[in-house]
């Protein structure tokens, strides 16, 4: 069941020019904060009415610790980045369906594909699957070296394949380049989160494969609770028939229309 909790901001870290990480502490243990789920964070200034949907980047449920990584894209996220240690945040969570990891067992090979602000949920997923004993390969794309964050998590969880548009780190190219070279044999499941182009590339690359391919969609949201119809997506042949916030944000690549 979703709940609103007060979290104490323990640490605010700048990861790149416009990407920040907040480490937060709740007063009690957290329940249901699974990989791929998200929270709605209230902007504590009284002007922004809408909470911001942010993916769970890391969590220690028993200890009540939560980490959120976000890019400053507008006034709301700029307000979040200006918050300092000791301030309190109202957070609604955990929401959405999360990645389907139930069928994976130790030794299974999985592929994670991410870019931009799509990386935070994959950071949590990589740790989670590595702990399960899965063999985790992660493909990550950035525009340039100075935008890189999170790669140490993926490297620690398994194999990291890095691409930059300008070749300043990893191979020159993008995740499309990495996907083309990927050997999909023996890969049990694919997970992707990132810009629309990246999700489409993943959807196309594995269109003829039989393993489950899960795409995490990003969207502006009003409520995050399946009430306002502000984040609809077409799934399974329907037209704008599912809420990204409620039935998603994770959808099967075989069913979702991007």
């Amino acid at each position, binding site marked *: 069941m979703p709940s609103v909790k007060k979290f104490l901001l323990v640490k605010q870290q700048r990861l790149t020019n416009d990407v920040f990480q907040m480490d937060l502490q709740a007063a009690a243990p957290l329940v249901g904060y699974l990989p791929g789920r998200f929270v709605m964070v209230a902007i504590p200034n009284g002007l922004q009415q809408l909470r911001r949907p942010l993916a769970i980047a890391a969590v220690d449920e028993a200890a009540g610790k939560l980490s959120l990584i976000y890019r400053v894209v507008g006034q709301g996220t700029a307000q979040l980045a200006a918050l300092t240690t000791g301030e309190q945040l109202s957070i*609604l969570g955990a929401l959405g369906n999360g990645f389907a990891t139930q069928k994976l067992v130790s030794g299974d090979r999985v592929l994670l594909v991410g870019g931009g602000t799509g990386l935070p949920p994959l950071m949590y997923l990589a740790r989670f699957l590595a702990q399960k004993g899965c063999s985790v390969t992660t493909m990550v794309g950035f525009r340039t070296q100075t935008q890189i964050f999170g790669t140490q998590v993926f490297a620690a969880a398994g194999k990291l394949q890095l691409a930059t548009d300008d070749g300043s780190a990893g191979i020159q190219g993008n995740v499309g380049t990495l996907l083309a070279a990927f050997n999909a044999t023996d890969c049990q499941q694919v997970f992707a989160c990132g810009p629309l182009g990246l999700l489409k590339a993943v959807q196309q690359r594995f269109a003829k494969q039989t393993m489950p391919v899960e795409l995490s969609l990003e969207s502006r949201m009003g409520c995050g609770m399946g*009430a306002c119809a502000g984040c609809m997506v077409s799934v399974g042949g329907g037209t704008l028939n599912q809420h990204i916030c409620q039935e998603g944000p994770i959808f099967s690549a075989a069913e979702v229309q991007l």
Partner: protein
Amino acid sequence: MSQTSEQRLAVKLPGLNLKNPVMPASGCFAFGDNRYAEMFDLNQLGAIIIKAATLEPRVGNPMPRIAEVPGGVLNAVGLQNPGVDVILKEKLPQLKAKYPELPVIANVAGTQEADYAETARRLSDSGMVDALELNISCPNVKQGGMQFGTDPVSAQAVTAAVKKVSRVPVYVKLSPNVTDIVAIAQAAAAGGADGLSMINTLLGMRLDLKTRQPVLANGTGGLSGPAIKSIAVRMIYQVSQKVDLPIIAMGGISNAEDILEMFMAGASAVAIGTAIFHDPLVFPKVIADLPQKMTDFNIESLSGLIAEVRSQRNEN
């Protein structure tokens, strides 16, 4: 104070005997089938206004449908709904099964008089709704909606057409996107409306500086939230001076003080929309806060306040 807390909050409107005056506004709470219902018991609500029903299913507008401004939200959902038949077959029975005592107001939208009337007839014949809210004020659809709410002749005609077939009281939801809202309110009254609900959203727009294009796929959207509250107060005040119908007030309400302000403007009940996005527990909170706030401002009961405000209006 001689009255019990329950008596203090109770209000009576045509077709609606409410234990408190607070309800979710149409479109912000789906059909009660959302995750807010996991966080608090909907039986605490005075009533629920369900999402707009149209004769045929509607997919609504493309994404993005939501944008933000300081103190408010722009939306252009475009009346997405599964159509009146699915609402009658699935949504309303589910709502009634879970909350048999909760009064239900069904919001009715359309593109022409005939489909407004047919949708209203089916809903009111079902026995599952206590009142209708006639939506002649949606700013996010190309046909119907607001065009009925900005012209007195059309407003009166569609109200009369729906009144002719409805077995339950009809509240006409007014658009603030007019020069003289009193004229539209009077037209609704002349059409036989049992009450008014006001205000719907104000037509607004935002542009993206990078793309130089509108943020919303629909171009324009409806502005809601605290930014529009003073406009709602002004319009309710004006209408209640000239029209004797009870008013369900909405437009930027987010706390108990806002509710009392709406009653002082001329409201007999209130609906809350945008505020729930910020505070998922705003409904139980404002209902719990009301008695103390009423005491703070020397209000013994809401029904007494309604009578007092209306008697002052009549003297004018």
